[in-house]
Structure formats: structure tokens, C-alpha cells
């Protein structure tokens, strides 16, 4: 019963993907959703963090903006004849605490061209990030802290 909401969302997704909202098809979608939830029942935990749709949209907008900016930068970089590279790894002190937030942050950093998260320390306080242009690690740290990490914490912190 706890996962009825998830099941309903899965049903709606089923409906949109198969492009028909007939009752029979929705019922089938509901059954498939229930089956898939049942298959992963041991991993399921009720959602414990609050969901803030507006903040999520802001995070998405920031991601798209960062994507456009850094994709252009890297594109210019690799198409130049002489590549002026100063690659390096820097340690980023994490303020995000939960595993979910850290995973999301690492994923977003990796998806943005030019930066790549490579490792997280055992105590989950430091993220190691490889940057193509690591001439000024301080500025990069500030970019992440003020950009992605702030937005993630706004969206998901309890």
C-alpha cells in the first residue's frame, strides 16, 4: 500500500509510452508496475526526503546552462590545433551529506564536460574531481559549491 503512488506513476508512464489510455491497457500497466515493484521489494524504502518541484526545475535549468557553457568550452578546446591543457585532480570538500545527494552531485559533475568525479573518500567528506582545466582549483571548487551543490541541497535536503 505504501508504494501505491509509485505504482500509479509507473502506470501513467506505461500509458504515455504505449500511447493509449484505454482502461485495459492502464490495468495491464498497473499490473506490470506492481510486478516490478514486487520484484525489487527488498530494496524499496519509503521516500524520506521532501520533494520540491520548483527547486528540481531550478536544478535542471542550472544543469542545462552548465552543459551548454562547458560543452562550448571543451569543444573549442579540442578543435584548436594546440590544446592548452592543464589537467589535474582536485579534492572537493562535500557539504552534501546523504548518499543520494552525493551520488547526484557526482553524476552531474561527470555529465558536465570538462569535469569528472573520480572518487569519494571513505568518510564521504571529500569528492575527488578531475578537471581538464585545473589551473585554478579554488575557482572550480567555488563553482561547484555555489552551483550544483547549493541547488541539490535546496532541492533535497531534509
Amino acid at each position, binding site marked *: 500500500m505504501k508504494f501505491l503512488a509509485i505504482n500509479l506513476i509507473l502506470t501513467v508512464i506505461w500509458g504515455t509510452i504505449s500511447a493509449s489510455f484505454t482502461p485495459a491497457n492502464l490495468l495491464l500497466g498497473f499490473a506490470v508496475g506492481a510486478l516490478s515493484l514486487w520484484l525489487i521489494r527488498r530494496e524499496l524504502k519509503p521516500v524520506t526526503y521532501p520533494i520540491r518541484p520548483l527547486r528540481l526545475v531550478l536544478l535542471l535549468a542550472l544543469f542545462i546552462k552548465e552543459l551548454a557553457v562547458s*560543452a562550448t568550452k571543451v569543444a573549442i578546446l579540442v578543435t584548436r590545433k594546440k590544446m592548452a591543457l592543464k*589537467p589535474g585532480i582536485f*579534492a572537493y570538500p562535500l557539504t552534501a551529506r546523504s548518499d543520494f545527494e552525493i551520488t547526484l552531485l557526482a553524476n552531474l559533475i561527470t555529465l558536465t564536460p570538462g569535469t*569528472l568525479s573520480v*572518487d569519494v573518500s*571513505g568518510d564521504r567528506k571529500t569528492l*575527488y574531481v*578531475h578537471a581538464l582545466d585545473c589551473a585554478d582549483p579554488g575557482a572550480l571548487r567555488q563553482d561547484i559549491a555555489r552551483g550544483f551543490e547549493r541547488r541539490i541541497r535546496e532541492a533535497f535536503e531534509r
Partner: protein
Amino acid sequence: MSHLTDLPAWAAIAVCGLLLMGAAMTLIGSIGLLRLPTFYDRLHAPTITTSGGTILVCFASMLCFAVLQSRWIFHEVLIIVFITVTTPVTLMLLGQASLYRHRFEKPQDVPLKQGPHAEKDRE
């Protein structure tokens, strides 16, 4: 059996633009993969291809078939979601493996791991 000629001009122009931009990003990513010198650097190039290229091409496909069949189409959103969720994991794993080796062979070049598991990892 191509109905692509039925596409109105405004949609055709938008689809072409998206496709060309996506293709250009994919090409740039491939060039980057080819030209960048070290392993870490090379890991950066595919992210342009996956994030930029895939998303743009998927948008082009969505727009094209949504206009042709005059209904909303969401299949490509699934492609985008799966690609954006799985690609970074692969890259991070590769990067982590490489960093592990790097720390082992030339620990002076990279920031060492701190925290409770650090000693165990360094052995």
C-alpha cells in the same frame, strides 16, 4: 514508405537544426576522444557526446514524429534518462580504477585518499 515529406517547413528546419547540432557535438566528442593525450582527459570527451549529442538528437526525433503523427511522444525521454543516468557511472568507474592505480604507482601526483579507509587502500 517515408512520410517525412509531409513535415511542415518550420518543423523541418527545427529538426534539421537539432540534428545537425547533435551530430556536430557527437563529432566533437569523437575528435576529443581521439586527440586528448591522457586517459583521464579522454574520459571527458564522451560526456559531450552523451549529454549534448544524445539529448539533441532525441529532441529532434521527438519533434519530428510528434509533428508527423500530431500527438505527444515521450519514448525518447526514456532514452535520455537512461543514458544520462548510466554513462556517468561507467566513466566514474573507469576514472576510479585509473586513480586507484595512479595512487599506487605515483602517489605524489594525486591527492591521496583521506579518512578511515585510507590506510587500507594505500597498502
